[in-house]
């Protein structure tokens, strides 16, 4: 270390943040260079005395003022959110689009005689419903996804995209309530072999006894006899809840 390095590292030396090699170099230099030693001693006195400055304490009123301000801020924030939350909500935005289209359809019905155009508009409404359902099913918020499941009742039975999204929800949604609602919504697709197969396959993927029981009920209601082997698999599996096993037994008897 030369005299320049010493100056640059002095404060870190006092703070104790110099690494070992630099500290040794610093001490070696200070013991041999009287000029640097004198400067270091003088400035260290300043640095140490600074550390002895008494710290003023804030008054108690500061805390009171802060919390009063925070409460006021929160009140305003809640007010602001309540005033406009529905405008920013994806469900509202999608529903508004559907309403506008429906209004357009009605006006079209009254004014136009072109049935082709009306059919086209109906198609658009249908795809808008699909869009709302799919987008809600992908929301982070569980209540939004539940709303998405509700919307799925409005789409055509032949809508394979919505069916696929519902099956994904049944298999992977982290919230039990959403999975349960999606199982119920499969009634809307009762005629679809894909829906029936998906439900049966999902039976052994579930970890929640509630969802397993709901799927078993659905299978029984749909009279899906191909589910037999899966239900038996559930009954013999070691990590399945006893009440689910009992219900599986019941379901098997119902399907016979």
């Amino acid at each position, binding site marked *: 270390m030369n005299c320049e390095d010493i*100056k*640059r*590292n*002095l*404060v*870190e030396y006092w*703070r104790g*943040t110099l690494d070992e090699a630099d500290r040794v170099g610093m001490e070696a230099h200070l013991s041999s260079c009287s000029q640097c030693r004198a400067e270091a001693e*003088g*400035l260290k006195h*300043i*640095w140490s*005395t*600074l*550390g*002895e*400055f*008494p*710290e*003023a*304490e*804030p*008054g108690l*009123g*500061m*805390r009171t*003022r*802060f*919390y009063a*301000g*925070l409460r006021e*801020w*929160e009140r305003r*924030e809640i007010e602001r959110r309540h005033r406009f939350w529905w405008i920013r909500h994806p469900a509202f935005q999608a529903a508004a689009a559907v309403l506008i289209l429906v209004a357009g359809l009605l006006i079209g019905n009254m004014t136009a005689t072109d049935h082709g155009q009306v059919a086209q508009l109906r198609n658009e409404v249908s795809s808008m419903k699909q869009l709302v359902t799919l987008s809600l099913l992908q929301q982070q918020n569980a209540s939004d996804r539940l709303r998405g499941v509700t919307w799925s009742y409005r789409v055509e039975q032949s809508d394979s995209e919505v069916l696929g999204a519902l099956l994904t929800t049944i298999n992977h949604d982290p919230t039990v309530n959403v999975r349960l609602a999606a199982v119920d919504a499969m009634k809307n697709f009762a005629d679809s072999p894909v829906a029936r197969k998906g439900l049966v396959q999902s039976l052994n993927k579930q970890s929640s006894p509630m969802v397993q029981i709901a799927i078993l009920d659905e299978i029984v209601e749909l009279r899906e006899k191909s589910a037999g082997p899966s239900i038996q698999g559930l009954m013999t599996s070691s990590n399945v809840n006893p009440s689910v096993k009992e219900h599986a037994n019941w379901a098997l008897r119902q399907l016979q």
Partner: protein
Amino acid sequence: MREVREGELASMAVLFERHHRPLFHYFVHMNGNRELSEDLVQDVFVRMMKYRNSYRPDKPFAAWMYQIARNAQNDAMQKRKFEVELGHADVSSSHGMDEKLKHEQEIELLRQAMARLPLEKRELLVLSRFQNLKYEEIASILGCEVGAVKVRVYRAVRALGQIFFELTHRRMAAPGEEIA
């Protein structure tokens, strides 16, 4: 702060409890005025709530907070054009005084030296000595490299030392006079 940014304003109370004292000390060291410093602490928390979206979780929180504090301090300086209050202790000649009193007067002289230090140098000492921030954090607050902070802090200590010794010599040359 991440929670505050995501709308959890109640988490601001946790930040207040953790940081209001260091912030208050920062302002008192910078402007020497208790009342103004309390106002500025409030101002910092209001700004934090207002600009919470500008906080980047990958950057040190202290750097973001002190950047806001610096802006609040600078705005106040421009508005008020006040001067840093000097200490009013009687800094008379040290003949016959006991060690404790001598030491107290030394602190008082150093406080006066701090008040005379140019603002940017005073700030470096406040951040490094009183707030005990790491050089990386100071570099982030000031928007410069760590190497530059090392040099600047050294120069600030040296400048403070110079003013302090001048004040001491003047005091010894003219004992009993108030230094202003």
